[in-house]
């Protein structure tokens, strides 16, 4: 069984650390959601694990493979996938071209097979849109391209940074269903999310990050039922209520 292990991780950008000693373990088939107010260090934690920000100390491991000194191609080969917060798609490239770039670390034949396999996922939507430039896609389709692009390299651990940001409630439901699907396939998923109630409903466990430290940790269902999580999200107290109200609108037509 796949396991992502983060031990006492410190991440920064040359000055003070923004993530201060985070330790987490996520097993395959499990969704762990990271909550926290703005500038709590959530995205920096993701970037530190992905190898995009400097880890000043601590360790990241996928099973027995230590990622600390591995450059990003090595991390991808070790089974790590990353979907950035703003989706970070490539202007002017088609859906197919995004998936082909996702196969960057694979051999040509394996890459082709994996791109074809990912095109068949999500009801074949990426295959149908293969020649469409990303400028012509909806927000939800763009998110599927970003997730599909990361899935081409067959990750065992997937980091999703705010996958529902800027999406309508109906599309949020679709994205969360995709996360459920990936969990069912045995991926270990580390998800940063602002949409607290939705995230907790789909996660197995959750942690709250405050100033780069874990201040609350527990079973997602219990935290969802426990109103005290609002106190831990400090600046997000209002947002918990707001997102709960948003969720009531889920399922409405786009």
């Amino acid at each position, binding site marked *: 069984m796949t396991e992502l292990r983060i031990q006492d991780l410190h991440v920064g950008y040359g000055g003070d650390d923004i993530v201060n000693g985070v330790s987490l373990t996520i097993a395959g088939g499990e969704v762990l959601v990271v909550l926290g107010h703005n500038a709590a260090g959530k995205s920096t934690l993701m*970037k530190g694990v*992905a*190898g*995009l920000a400097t880890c000043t100390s601590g360790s990241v491991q996928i099973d027995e493979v230590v990622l600390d000194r591995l*450059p*990003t*191609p090595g991390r*991808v*080969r070790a089974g790590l996938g*990353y979907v*950035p917060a703003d989706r*970070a*798609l*490539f*202007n*002017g*490239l088609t859906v197919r*071209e995004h998936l*082909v*770039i*996702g196969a*960057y*670390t694979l051999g040509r034949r394996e890459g082709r097979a994996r791109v074809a396999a990912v095109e068949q996922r999500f009801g074949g939507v990426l295959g149908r849109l293969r020649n469409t430039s990303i400028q012509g896609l909806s927000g939800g389709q763009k998110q599927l391209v*970003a997730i599909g*692009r*990361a899935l081409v*390299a067959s990750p065992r651990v997937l980091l999703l940074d705010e996958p529902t940001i800027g999406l309508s409630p109906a599309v949020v439901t679709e994205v969360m269903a995709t996360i459920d699907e990936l969990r069912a396939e045995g991926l270990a998923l580390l998800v940063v999310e602002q949409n607290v109630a939705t995230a907790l409903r789909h996660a197995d466990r959750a942690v709250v990050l405050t100033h780069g430290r874990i201040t609350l940790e527990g079973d997602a269902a219990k935290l969802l039922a426990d109103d005290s999580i609002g106190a831990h999200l400090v600046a997000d107290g209002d947002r918990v209520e707001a997102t709960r109200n948003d969720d009531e609108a889920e399922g409405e037509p786009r």
Partner: protein
Amino acid sequence: MNILSRWSSVALTVAAVVVIAILTTVLPGFRLSLGTQLFAYIIICLSANLLFGYADEIVLAQAAIVGFGSYGFAVAVNAGAPLVMAALVAIALSSVGSVLLAFPALRLQGLFLAIITLAFQFAFSGIAEGWRAVTGGLNGIAVNSLFTAPVPGMEAERFWFLVAGILAVLLVLALRRLVRGPFGRGLAALRDAPEAAAALGMRALHWKLVTFALAGGISGIGAVLLVGRTAYVSPGSYTVQQSMLITVAIIVGGVASITGSVLAAIIVVGLPELLFALGASAELTPVIIALTIVVCLRFLPRGIVSLPGLVGRRLRRARAKEASS
């Protein structure tokens, strides 16, 4: 690429080479020299657009990159090296000069990189003028052996026109293929979302080194042709003004466009000729450059290359309005 476009591309290439071969035999000396200069600058502008347009690196030292190759070629030919060997030296030197700029490009972007490359350009000019033992200082280096073509019975200017024309056609085709293929997609990925590209396993260092080396090598080919045309190299041809002119010409011609690069070359070669024909002072060049860029950014932000599309859209809109009224 489908079969039809492949065949049309082959047919166009053959036609272009035939036209160049015919022009080689019929054009008078002055036109041949101007043509060689144009072909050389098509190659140089392709290289500059690869960095500036496709890789989004603001490099204001294109003339210096070319200068490395030109001096290398001149010195190698005068030292007795065969032409092909001297050309390889030029390509290698321009490539190395360009790669030196890849390292600051790893940490700096936009205006900060532009300033560093500008400093590099000034340093090159300083060395070219000051290191007299190698560069001949302000007097430059004459390469008298280039007045004779290596092909018996052929005039040197016809030889260089033919070689420059064929190389320009081949490089236009090669670059077109390159930027539309995996390399172009990789550059687009690193330009638009470098973090996402890195997370997929792309290493910015490798890509920048390869892109700068390739662009430098292409410039080196242009450098050889420029020296071949005049049999002379001097610091005056590789100044900061020339770097600025190349960059502005690319903005005016069309950024990240092969056709835009060809248009840029026409501007680089044609603008001084036009000023000369109009009897205007060469000192007016910076003023014309400034006005051109302002007008272009106001009316054609995507360069002259976007003009047909813009006119087409306007015409379609006008027709639709007529039809609806």
